[in-house]
């Protein structure tokens, strides 16, 4: 008997409904959980996304892409399969996709987190028989600190840099993390500047209705800007590039869940690491799985064998890995880029 959702070489396929979830090859119908590049790929003939994801997905998939949107919680039918989208708490417009057919319910969570994030609707556990979970930070060493404490550290670092006459450059993934940093820090400390990639994303999320503190695109900064007072938000790709030279003396920081581990912090060679992730931590993952009541869990995206084995042995849940190209499989070094 075939499963409701199964992997083939294009992606996760629902034969009953004849659609794919987050396909990595162009298909005729793609249901997409969120607008990060490893999940949302151009070229498909038809897309269905959560309403709040429209501006960023439009930017990702192209102006001509045939995109249809759906509000959270509203069920629709595709070829007799009942579909609804539910908030995943990962980035703006991110969704878990609930698929129901002949009384059997599956939920594909895409990427998710349960920590609060003012830039998106909070994760909701959706009861199901089979839950597809990510495992980016699927080891018990990953336990996220309170956001308030992290942002307190960011604010202190920024103030200290101001006192030392250094610009504060924080590297953060342009979609999601960058906006989360902006809404988390204290904007009264000083002016905020953004790299072009972050500026683009800010415009998109503003279109989606999110309000962010005021920021200036670095290229449009006045000629005599005193960078030493500024917080500059740039994508990780700007690390170590000549683009940074314009700011004079800088202190660099990286906002990522990987910053919890000392070796990872040191390898990034930034001055500071702030532990801020858009993925669920170990405990959050276990809680979420339990909250769905799922009797079967499929694991993708990160520490797949570890999470699957733990769920089987310690929680007695039927669990196994799904080989998907989301995130990366075994390469810690690049996993951060997929956040």
């Amino acid at each position, binding site marked *: 008997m075939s499963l409701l959702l199964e992997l083939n070489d294009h992606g996760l396929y629902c034969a009953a409904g004849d659609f794919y979830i987050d396909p990595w090859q162009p298909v005729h119908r793609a249901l997409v959980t969120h607008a990060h590049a490893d999940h949302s790929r151009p070229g498909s003939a038809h897309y269905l996304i959560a309403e709040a994801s429209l501006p960023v997905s439009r930017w990702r998939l192209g102006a001509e892409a045939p995109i249809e949107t759906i509000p959270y919680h509203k069920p629709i039918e595709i070829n007799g399969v009942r579909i609804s989208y539910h908030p995943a708490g990962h980035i703006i417009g991110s969704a878990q996709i609930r698929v129901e057919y002949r009384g059997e319910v599956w939920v594909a969570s895409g990427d998710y987190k349960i920590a609060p994030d003012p830039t998106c609707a909070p994760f909701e556990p959706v009861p199901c028989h089979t839950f597809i979970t990510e495992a980016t930070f699927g080891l*018990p*060493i990953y336990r996220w600190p309170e956001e308030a404490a992290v942002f307190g550290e960011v604010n202190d670092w920024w103030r200290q840099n101001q006192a030392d006459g250094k610009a504060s450059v924080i590297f953060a993934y342009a979609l999601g993390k960058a906006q989360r940093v902006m809404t988390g820090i204290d904007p009264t400390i000083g002016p905020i500047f953004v790299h072009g990639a972050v500026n683009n994303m800010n415009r998109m999320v503003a279109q989606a209705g999110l309000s962010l503190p005021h920021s200036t695109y670095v290229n449009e900064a006045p000629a005599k800007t005193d960078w030493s007072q500024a917080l500059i938000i740039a994508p990780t790709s700007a690390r170590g590039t000549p683009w940074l030279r314009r700011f004079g003396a800088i202190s660099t920081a990286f906002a990522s869940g990987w910053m919890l581990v*000392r070796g990872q*912090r*040191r390898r990034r060679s930034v001055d500071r690491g702030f532990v801020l992730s858009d993925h669920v931590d170990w405990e959050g993952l276990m809680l979420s799985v339990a909250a769905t009541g799922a009797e079967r869990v499929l694991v993708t995206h990160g520490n797949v064998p*570890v999470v699957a084995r733990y769920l089987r042995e310690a929680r007695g849940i039927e669990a196994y890995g799904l080989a998907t190209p989301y995130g990366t499989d075994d390469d810690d070094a690049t996993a951060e880029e997929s956040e």
Partner: protein
Amino acid sequence: MKRFTDLYSRLDSTTKTNEKIAAMVDYFNGAPAADAAWAIYFLSGRRPKRLIQSRRLREWAAALTDIPDWLLVECHSAVGDSAETAALLLPAAAHSSDLPLHQWLETRILPLRELDDEQMKQQVLAWWATLDGMERFVLNKLLTGSFRVGVSQRLLTRALAQQSGIDEATVAHRLMGHWEPTPDFVAALLSHETTDADVSRPYPFFLAYALEETPVVLGSVEEWLVEWKWDGIRAQLVRRHGQSFLWSRGEELVSDRYPEVIAAAEALPDGTVLDGELLAWADGKVLPFAQLQRRIGRKSIGKKLLRDVPVLLLCYDLLEWQGKDVRHQSQWWRRERLAELLAAVDRPHLPLSEIVESDSWEALATIREESRDRLVEGFMLKRKSSPYRVGRRRGDWWKWKIDPYTIDAVLIYAQRGSGRRASLYSDYTFAVWDEGELVPFAKAYSGLTDAEMRRVDNFVRRNTRERFGPVRSVTPKLVFELAFENIQRSNRHKSGIAVRFPRILRWREDKQIEEADTLDTIKAMLP
């Protein structure tokens, strides 16, 4: 402890010298002397003995959080460090304590020795509940005797000098030797008075850099004193107030281990400090380093070992003469006094290092070819006019080493590194051919660029054959050129040989594994 943890975090998060110094100066400005004493103790690389095995710490943390063994192995492998793994596994602190560093050490950590296993465990678990993540990590490092921080002795010296206004050389000298981390020590260390009473205290060693180019750039050969570069243990012999002290370069007092040298030192006048090299020596010839190794780390030396591996101190330099610090005198002046002194005492266990005379660098280069046969590593070049400086400096002393042995070998095992390389497969075992089989013969950790290391890491992940804990065996495909300094027969190694200081010279992407060297080629290099 919070203040010390902050200092650790600041030092750990920067590679910039000025920021490290600033962090230490800030710390010493604010810390009470009792805490500063312990901070200096740790920053200068001193460590109390390990109290708890690091493996036990992570096991306790796993048990506390219900983590099965296999999952603990995964966590440890991702983090690369037991103390950190334990710190990360634990939930956030229930409440927080801020006991000062010296009280942590004196009333808590060091008294752990008195406890039995179970008491120790209960104690540590209770402490964990009062510390946040980074403090917990620092505590774990202290408990396991593995606290390390990226600060050189020189940097610490500069920070203390800057903070106290005392000159660096004085601070460096006062930091040497054996001392207790007490407020009195800090007071004496940072005192503006000049009487330094400690009889046993050695001087900071002057260390040379390797000369990477031809010595012709150093100017006329006549300005240089040339000696053989020996492969032994650099040491200082201190003779004051009728007592003798032998210090290794690691600032370890090793007097007990070399009784024959200490006996010879009796003949030295009070107020003498010699710099030299401990060498195993018999029948007028140096013995291989492996022989000397039998004497290292032995606290009590049996008669047989004393007879089989006699040790002497080959003297290079004179740092204190007639009770006066003479390091500011020229190399040549010190050498002449040293020669007179050693001739006067005339002890076979205190020979004078030979000067290699020559009228040109070319002639010296020819003589240098004899190095391997003489079991030396090349030449030491010392500017005749130079003072005896502090620490590793360029300019006046150079190591002019012979080219290392090189060989092409095949990567067969890989392990994750530690620290900055914790998540990369960066520690390798290499093999050479022996009768159609690859036999492991050397481990090497360094020599690749970061980019190459990432590529090898990728290769390892894709070509793993078997996993044994943190080690993976990989399909033999990659060939590397290795360099090493020395080669000896060894029964402890499967290959039957042991090499000194193996390192990766380059990745031979142009070579197939069939082109790697054989064990016989290496054995032919045996002296």
